[in-house]
C-alpha cells in the first residue's frame, strides 16, 4: 500500500446517542475517486469534518501522506494539501467570482499584501483557467450572490482547486442540482480532477453518479464501513442493495 494518501484508523465519534463513527478504518488511494455512500445520518459528512479538522474524533487517528493530522485546525490541514468543497456552496457572496478565486490564490501563497491590488496577483490567468476548466468562466466578473445554485457549486469546487490540493473532499457535489445537469457537472468535475491530478473523496446519494464516476465505493452504515470495493462489486452486494440502496 505504498500509494495511500489519506488513512483513517479506528475513528470513533458519537453525538449524544448517535454513533456516527464506530471504529472506522478507511484508506484513500492516490489518484482515485472514492465515493462514500450510506443512509442519511450514517456519518458520511462527519468523516469529511474529521478529515478536515472541523471535528475532533473521540478515538482513532488520521494520517495524510504519513503525517498525523488528527485534530489539527482546518487551515493547517488545508495548507498540507486537503481542500474541501461543501454541500451548500460556501462562497464570499458580496465579491465577484474572480475575487473569490483570487482570495483563495492569495491564501495559498500566504503573507497576503495590504497594498498591492488583489486583481494584480500574478495568479489571475491561472484562476481564469480553473474557472474555464469547471465551466464558469463567463461568470468571473459577476457577484457570487447572483449565480444560480448549480453554478455556485462549481465555483465552490473551483475555489478548492485554486488551493492546488492533493486531495479534494466533496460533500454531495450534485445535490441541489437539477437531475438533467448532474451528469454534465460530474463530467466537468471528474475530467477537471484528472487534469489537475487531484485525488477525490465524494459523499453521494445518487447511485447512477457513483456507478459512473467512482473508482471505489465505501458503504457507511450505522457508524461502520459495511463494504469497500469497485462500484460493480458493491452495488451487486445483496445486503448493500437492501439496506443502503433500498431495492
Amino acid at each position, binding site marked *: 500500500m505504498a500509494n495511500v494518501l489519506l488513512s483513517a484508523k479506528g475513528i470513533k465519534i458519537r453525538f449524544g446517542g448517535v454513533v456516527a463513527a464506530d471504529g472506522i478504518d478507511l484508506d484513500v488511494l492516490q489518484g482515485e475517486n472514492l465515493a462514500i455512500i450510506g443512509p442519511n445520518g450514517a456519518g458520511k459528512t462527519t468523516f469529511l469534518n474529521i478529515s478536515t479538522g472541523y471535528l475532533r474524533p473521540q478515538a482513532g487517528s488520521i494520517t495524510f501522506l504519513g503525517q498525523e493530522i488528527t485534530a489539527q485546525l482546518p*487551515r493547517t490541514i*488545508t495548507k498540507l494539501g486537503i481542500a474541501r468543497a*461543501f454541500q451548500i456552496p*460556501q*462562497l464570499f457572496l*458580496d465579491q465577484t467570482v474572480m475575487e473569490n478565486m483570487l482570495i483563495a490564490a492569495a*491564501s495559498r501563497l500566504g503573507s*497576503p499584501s495590504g497594498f498591492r491590488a*488583489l486583481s494584480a496577483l500574478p495568479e489571475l490567468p491561472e484562476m481564469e483557467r480553473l474557472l474555464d476548466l469547471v465551466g464558469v468562466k463567463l461568470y468571473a466578473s459577476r457577484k457570487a450572490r447572483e449565480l444560480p445554485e448549480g453554478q455556485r457549486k462549481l465555483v465552490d469546487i473551483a475555489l478548492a482547486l485554486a*488551493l492546488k490540493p492533493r486531495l479534494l473532499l466533496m460533500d454531495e457535489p450534485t445535490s441541489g442540482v437539477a437531475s438533467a445537469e448532474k451528469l454534465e457537472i460530474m463530467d466537468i468535475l471528474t475530467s477537471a480532477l484528472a487534469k489537475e491530478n487531484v485525488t477525490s473523496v465524494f459523499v453521494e446519494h445518487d447511485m447512477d453518479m457513483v456507478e459512473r464516476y467512482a473508482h471505489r465505493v465505501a458503504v457507511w452504515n450505522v457508524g461502520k464501513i459495511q463494504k469497500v470495493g469497485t462500484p460493480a462489486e458493491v452495488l451487486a452486494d445483496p445486503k448493500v442493495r437492501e439496506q443502503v440502496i433500498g431495492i
Partner: protein
Amino acid sequence: MSGRIKPVTTIAIIFFLVSAVAPLLVSSWATLFALILAKGIVVLGIILLLQAGQVSFGHAMFFATGAYTAAFWGKYVGGGDIVLFIALGGITSAVFGLIVGLFVVRYREIFFGMLNLAFSMVLWSLLEKMFHYTNGADGIRVPRPALLGLSFTPETFQYVILYVSLLIAVVAFYGVQRYLDSPLGHMLRAIKSNETRLEYLGTSARRVLLIGYVISAFLGGIGGTLVAIIQQIATPEFGFWTKSGEFVFIAILGGSAHAFGAFAGAAMFECVRFYAAAHLVDTWQLILGVVLIVIILYAPNGLIGLRQRYGQAKQGGH
C-alpha cells in the same frame, strides 16, 4: 468596479482641494477643516473594521491614547514637535491596539462591540481617576508644539496644523483605499460574508482581523493626537463611550463602501455641529439625530451610497 469607484475618488480630490483652499478665505474654517480631517482619519479605522462586519464601540480608547501621548509628553518632558507627537501617538496606539486586539478579535458582532466598549471604559476610568498623573476630568493642556523645530504664532499655527492634517488625511485615505482593494482587504470583507470558508482556504480569520484592528488603532491614535494638538487639550472625554459612538455615527453617516465615506461623514457631522451650535444653542444633537434617521431611512449606505445610487440610476437610463 472601477467605474463605480472613480466618481467617488473625484469627489474626494475635490474635497481635499476645498479643505486646502477654503480656510484661506475664511480663517475660522481652518480649525473646522482640521477637525474634520483629523476625525476622518479616525473614522477610516472604523470603516476598515466595518468591512469585516465588526463595529467597535470603544475606538475612542485609541483616540484618547494618541491625545494623551502628546499631553504626557508636554507635561513630563516638555516642548515637543508635531512630527514627534504624531509618530508617538500612532505607535503607542498601535501597540495598545495589538494588545487589546489579541483579545477582541476572538469575538464577533455584539460581543466584539461590547468588549471594545469595556476596554475603552477601563481606560476612561483610569484617565478620570488617576488624578495625580492625569489631572482627572480637567484633562491636560497640550502646549502648542513646533513643526520640525519651527515655532509659530497662534494665527499661523492653525494653518500649519490644518495642512499637516490634510497631508496625513490624504496619505491615510489613499493607503486605506489601497488596503480595501488588496488581498488583505478582500479577506477582511470575506470575514463578513463567510469566515468558515476563509479558514478552509488556509487563512486565519483572526489574524486578518487583528492586522485590520491594529491599523485601525494606529489611525485612531493619529487622529486623537491631531485633535489634541488642534484643541490644545486632552481630557478623559476623548476616551468616553459617547466619543466612540460619535465615530461609528460618522462612519454610518458617510458610508463604509469607500474610504471617502469617513471624510464625507466627518464633514457633515462637524459642519452641522459648527453651525447648529452657533445658531441654535443646545439643539445640535437633535439636528444630528434627525440627520441620522433620514440617512438610515433613505440612504442606508451613507452619503457615499447616495452617489452610487444616483450613478446607477443614470446608468439604467433614468
